[in-house]
């Protein structure tokens, strides 16, 4: 049964691929598209430099992640506080998540990336790398904070009751009982945020950093050819597809564990 469905899937996929391969080149503009988007020569010439530029994407991603984690956790805890004396913090958390989830990322990147260096700060504080990172960190912290908060709220009250009955303080209960379980539970959701973040690093190309998208743009202007964009897309896919699969695997495993 399994074997038969595999055969059917194989045959139908082959047919579709064959159809695309034979039909698309029949389109009137194919020759021109092939030359400007799938030019092997341009690809070979630009791809290594694109990979190099992608290292910037990775670097920006890597230093953003710890910042996002810390800020998001702080915001989530602020939003979750039940202490009336800390209400201003809670209000701040609510406003923060509302505002940064409500503005398109690219707009935050523009506003911060152009606005703050415009203040005429001395080097290195006028660097678009810094302010671009800040824009991404602020935005993603809002999303990740909400994920953490959903994790915290998914922990059953009986866990808090058990901790309280042992005389543990509220902060110890959060730190040792609630958070470790909550964070584990939202790992798959956060993996998906990380994948989105890795892609959104490319938005910084609009304010200066010569990461892969900007590098591809430079090549495009230089060579009057779009193939570098295809190269950039391939580089992104080589990272995001395995990461997405891994996230799916984590989600499936968690679902199995909980049932």
């Amino acid at each position: 049964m399994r074997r038969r469905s595999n055969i059917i899937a194989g045959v139908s996929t082959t047919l579709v691929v064959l159809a695309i391969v034979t039909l698309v080149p029949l389109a009137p503009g194919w020759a021109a598209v092939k030359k400007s988007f799938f030019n092997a020569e341009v690809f070979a010439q630009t791809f290594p430099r694109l990979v190099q530029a992608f290292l910037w994407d990775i670097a920006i991603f890597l230093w953003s992640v710890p910042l996002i984690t810390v800020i998001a956790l702080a915001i989530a805890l602020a939003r979750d506080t039940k202490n009336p004396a800390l209400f201003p913090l809670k209000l701040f958390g609510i406003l923060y998540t509302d505002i940064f989830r409500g503005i398109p990322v690219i707009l935050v990147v523009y506003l911060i990336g152009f606005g703050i260096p415009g203040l005429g700060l001395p080097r290195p504080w006028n660097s678009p790398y810094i302010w671009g990172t800040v824009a991404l960190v602020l935005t993603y912290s809002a999303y990740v904070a909400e994920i953490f908060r959903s994790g915290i709220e998914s922990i059953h009250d009986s866990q808090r009751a058990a901790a309280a009955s042992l005389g543990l303080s509220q902060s110890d209960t959060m730190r040792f009982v609630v958070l470790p379980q909550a964070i584990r539970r939202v790992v798959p959701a956060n993996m998906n945020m990380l994948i989105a973040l890795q892609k959104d690093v490319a938005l910084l190309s609009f304010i200066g950093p010569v990461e892969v998208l900007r590098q591809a743009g430079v090549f495009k202007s230089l060579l009057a050819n779009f193939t570098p964009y295809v190269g950039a897309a391939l580089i992104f896919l080589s990272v995001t597809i395995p990461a997405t699969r891994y996230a799916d695997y984590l989600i499936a495993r968690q679902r199995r564990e909980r049932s």
Partner: protein
Amino acid sequence: MLELRDVAKSFGGNRVLNGISLTVERGEMVCLIGASGSGKSTLLRCINLLEPIDDGAVFLDGQDISEPGLNPDPVRRRIGMVFQSYNLFPHMTAEENVMLAPRRVHGKTREALRPQVTELFTRFGLADRMQHYPDQLSGGQQQRVAIVRALAMRPEIMLFDEITSALDPELVGEVLDVLRQLRSEGMTMVLATHEMKFAAELADKICFLDAGRIAEQGPPSQIFEAPQKARTRAFLSRVL
């Protein structure tokens, strides 16, 4: 040692505890019985300050612990509580579950706690289960770990909320044995329970709760053999 005076508690407009007065002497075992929804769990949660009370007072060794604004943490350390659904921390081993509160509250190291904790695990037949995670333990073992976890804080009084109700019948015995053992060691205990035979055998006092009131209380011989109130008789005839 523990005294409740006219304790009242409502959830919304629903009056769940309606003037409960009860005393528990040191070393006594008191069993709360009553129909589902009669307020047994709520009463225990109020004693442990997991729920604030609306009226009345709770005294522990003469201290009013129901005073609003009182820091509940030091009080809860003196009162151990075990729940129907065990409520172990699933991301910690049995040993870590037991050590967490003494470490954080008393500031002791794992090494300093280990002899005492190992002794507790051994005493309740769990010596070879210390490094297991809760999902690797049977229900009865989990519940015994939960009891050990509460005992590790050296509480003066223990509250048990239907701790055998979630267990498969063949596992109930091992948990009741733990209670017998604690009883013989002189622990002060308040139990909400549906195990009438067990209550009759061991309790010093039975309280029959009905719609948020103690309808009748007294020694098991009186409650089970010569109940005074019609409600008590009706309840017992249903469960016995």
